Structure formats: C-alpha cells, structure tokens
C-alpha cells in the first residue's frame, strides 16, 4: 500500500508534463484548426487541405522525407557497423555526435558558403576537372544538408542495437556454414531491425516538417508542409489553416508510428 502511494507521488511530475506539454498543445492545435481566418467556427480549413496545392505539398514533403531517411540509413548502417568494430567505440561515437551540438542555423549558413558558386565545393570540382556546377538551391544540396543534420540520430539507435548483439550468434551462423552476406541478411539485420525502425522514425518524422532549410539551402524551391505552417502562423496570421496542417502532420506521424511499431513482436 505504501509502495503504491509513493509511486503515485513520484509520477505526478510525469503526468503534469504529459498533460501540459503533450495533451494540451494537441488539444489547442485541434481547437484552433476549427476556426477560419476571420475567427468563425468552421470546417473550411479541412476542406482547403484537400485542394491540389496542399495535396501536392504533402506529397512533396513525404517524398523528400523518404529520400532523406533512405540516404541517412544507407550511410548510417555501415558507419554504425564499423563503429562497433573499432577499438575506442565511445570516442568515435562522440565525434559523430559533436556536430549536432552546433546550432542548426549556423551549419546551414556554413553550407551557403561551401556550396556557393565560389565556394569550396566548386573549387574542388574545378580542380579535379569537372568544372563549376550549381550546387546551392538544388535538390541535391537540400538532401545532402538534411542528411548531414539527421544522420547522428540514425546512427545512435543502430549502433546501440549492433552493440548489444551477442557475438556468439555470428559465430554460430559461421559454424553452420553461412556466408558473410547470409549472416548479415538472416541474422544481424533482423536482430537490429528495432534500431533501424527507431532510427527511421526519429529521422522521417522531423524531416516531414523541415522548414528553415527549405529556404536557406534550397531557396524555397522545395516547399514542405513545415514551410506552409510557418507562413500561415507568422505571415498571414491564419492560425486556423496553420493548425489544420499541423493536425494532418500529427495524424501522419501517428500512422507512421503505428505502422513501424506494429510488427515489433513478429520479428
């Protein structure tokens, strides 16, 4: 009995946190989404969302988020794998995490210089004989910078999963005659799938609503739902439409969580 009372007491901060910083904001966003630009109660925002502009934007957001997640995974998995094989694992891991301490905007501005017409990247291209190319304000630069920013969040969970892997499984597979590729495909990858899933969630979901980078790095050539929310709140001050887009983003995120979480037990 006493134990239970103690548990309740300690869980108060947690519940307060959830109520004030999780439930209340979502309820507020839902509430605001039900008002049109003049402050009248209406569902017109939801109707507006299903117009070509916003559907196209949703498709765009998903497409770029997918590309960002894919490339992050492509580079993160081998990196994480190599990290587990190194001698000073924690040190290498720290080196990968350090750039994420630097402010996002600062990094974006740095890339403005690096990718510019007279920047380091183009100097290099000229030196190796390819010649100057437009890098800034292209899909390539947008995805490159996004991947650079998100990749630590993909490496960490995969690294943890790989690190926890019992080496005797690999030995067993080896002893039973499995090739390296088969061992990876049938043993290592399935056992680290949870790490991959949480890595994908942590990258895909924020990538869906990126906004600062769309202006700085891609010069507003890539328009995502995040950009639209920013504009509705700050420029038009149409909180209703901004909230409606946010509501759809929340729904998408729940769907993604549900889809990637459901088969957890089945592996």
């Amino acid at each position, binding site marked *: 009995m006493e134990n239970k009372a103690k548990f309740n007491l300690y869980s108060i901060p947690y519940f307060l946190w959830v109520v004030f910083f999780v439930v209340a904001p979502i309820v507020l966003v839902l509430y605001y989404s039900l008002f049109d*630009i*003049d402050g009248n109660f209406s569902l017109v925002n939801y109707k507006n969302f299903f117009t070509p*502009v916003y559907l*196209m*934007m949703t498709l*765009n957001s998903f497409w770029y988020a997918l590309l960002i997640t894919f490339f992050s995974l492509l580079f993160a998995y081998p990196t994480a794998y190599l990290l587990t094989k190194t001698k000073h694992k924690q040190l290498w891991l720290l080196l990968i995490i350090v750039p994420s301490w630097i402010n996002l905007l600062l990094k974006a*501005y740095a890339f*403005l210089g690096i990718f*510019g*017409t*007279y920047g380091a990247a183009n100097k290099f291209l000229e030196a190796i004989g390819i010649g100057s190319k*437009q890098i*800034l*304000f292209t899909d390539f630069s947008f995805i490159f910078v996004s991947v650079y920013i998100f990749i630590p969040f993909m490496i960490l969970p995969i690294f943890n999963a790989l690190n926890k892997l019992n080496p005797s499984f690999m030995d067993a597979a080896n002893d039973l005659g499995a090739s390296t590729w088969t061992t990876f495909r049938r043993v290592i990858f399935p056992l680290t799938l949870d790490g991959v899933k949480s890595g994908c969630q942590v990258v895909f979901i924020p990538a869906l609503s990126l906004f600062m980078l769309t*202006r*700085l790095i*891609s*010069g*507003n*050539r890539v*328009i995502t739902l995040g950009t*639209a929310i920013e*504009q*509705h709140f*700050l*420029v*038009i*001050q*149409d909180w209703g*439409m901004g909230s409606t887009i946010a509501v759809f983003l929340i729904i998408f995120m729940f769907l993604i969580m549900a889809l990637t979480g459901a088969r957890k037990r089945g592996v």
Partner: protein
Amino acid sequence: MKQLVRVFLTIILVSIVLLFITNRLNQSQGLSGGNTLTVYNWGDYIDTDLIDQFEKETGIKVIYETFDSNEAMMTKIEQGGTTYDVAVPSEYMIDKMIKEDLLIQLDHSKLTNLENIDERFLDLPFDPDNVYSIPYFWGTVGIVYNPEMLNGMEITSWNDLWDPKLKNEILLIDGAREVIGMGLNSLHYSLNDTNPLHLQEAKAKLDLLTPNIKAIVGDENKLLLANKEAAIGITWSGDASEIMSENEDLDYVVPSEGSNLWFDNMVIPKTAKNIDGAHAFINFMLDAKVSAQNTEYVSYSTPNKAALEFLPEEVVKDERFYPSPELTDKLEVYENLGKRNLATYNELFLEFKMHRK
C-alpha cells in the same frame, strides 16, 4: 542530495547579488526613475552621436533598444513589460497597431519641426493626417544588379527580367506582397489590387519567370548578392544601398512600371511613460540639421525636405534613392488589404513557389 541543494542555493544567491548590483548601477546612472526615455528602433538605424546631443540639450537620459522585425517589436509592445516611449515601425504595422489600439495620438503643437517634412510624405493612407505617426525614413522596392556579370546589359523595368538571357540569375525576396506586387506592376496593375482575375493573371505571368529564378531567399540575399552568387536581386532600397556599399560593382534601379514606396515611422506606443520626452525626441529628430546628419549616417532616403539642403549634392541628386517626381508618382504605398486578401496573396505566392522549372 545535500550537494545538489547547495549548488542550487549558490546559483540563487549569485543571481540575487547580480540583480542587486545591476539595480544599483542603473540608479547611479539615473536609468531607473527620473527623467528617462526609452527608444525602440531597428538595429543600426540612428547616428548615436545624435542621442548624446539630445541628452545634452534636454537633460533626458535615453535608453536605446533595438529590434530586427516589425512582428517582434509589436509582440514586445503588446506584452507591455518595458515602457517604450518611442518606436519606429513600418507603415503596414502602423495600420495594425492603430487597429489594436497600441498607439497614442500625437500632439502636433509640440512637433514644431513637422513643417520640415515633404508634403508628399504626409497624410498617407496608413495614417491619415499623421494622427499617430511621423515618417522617419522611406524607400522603394527595386532591382539590384551587377552590370559586369550581365555583360553590360541594362535593366530598367520589371519586364526586362523576363528576358530568357537571364536564365537562373534572379534572387527574389521571400515576401508575398513584394513578389506578387512585382507581377502586378509588370502588368501595370496596382500593388493594392484585389481583383482575383488580376491576381491570377499576375501569378500566371510570374510562373513564366521561374526559369530565370535562382532562389527565393530572405535576408541572406545581401550576402549572396555581394558575393556574386547571382547577378540580379529584388529587394528594398535600404538593403540595396547596404549591398552596394559592400560590392561597388552593383547598381540599383526603381523599375519604370512603378513599385512600392515604404516608410518607417516614429510613433508613441501605449506603453509610454514619458510622453513629453517622446514628443521632444521626435521633434528633435525632425530638425533639419539633425535629420541631415542622421541621413548621412544611415544612408536611407529622408522625408525631411529641409534636411536635403544640408546633404551633399551627390546624395540628393542620386535618382536611384531620391527618384524623380515622375517616377515617385508611379510608386504606391501598401494599403492594409485585410487578412482575407493578404491570405489570397500568400496562397498565390505559395502556389508560385511550388511551380517547378
């Protein structure tokens, strides 16, 4: 646990001591209480020597604070934490602040130097009869370009930008009214047009410009243009003069079809405590010589007709920043179109941004 408590106690103690010290310092400088005036202005937008001069002449201590966007300024004034006595918002913000009852009516009898202001810049639609605001600086929206990068090609109008030779050379500013306005102007419609057909027409025309557009950017355009990242930028005259001081190859032109005319204006917000001091400050800034000195420092265009006499001829005669009357007649001030029309502008701008090459 004990250690943790000790750490917290130390932090709190240090904070209290620091608070006490700042308080004493402020008192000894006469900042809190007494005759002070808090001025809230854009960053680097006044010659600070003039503040010293004002303090000497009137004995009023000036506390000078700065902001970097109209929105941020309005939020701070709405909150009312600091007693700002004078602020300098742009014209569209003034309309909004009047509607939200954030401004105090000016007493024109205390503003004896008001006659120095050019009549063209008084009694404008955002504040008829200047009940709440006095113009501080003004400017236009136009085209900054690098003739060298364009092989001497000359740009004089909005329509010049649609030239296929300018492929991938234009940096637009990320503002719905500026960009849609450019479309409207190129079709010889008003910048305050709300006719949906005209707006659609402007958007369709802008879509044709997409191959020439390199990017749609914010304040970083100053950096990008000075670094020759693109040959052409659409921006405000104030930013243009700043870019041109960094890279002298660049030139600025107010397009011949017409463009936007903007104003930053001095107002007294509702938060003001020292209303007499605020009037004294505004009147001081309207003085011909003071205004001329300030203009030389800030290098924007002054609305002060009397000050022009004290300015070097090459500044006053520079038609890029003091356009001829024929051109000024074609310039328009943004009217507050209301939330709904503004939403239409932004919706079209968003669609335009999504139009791929």
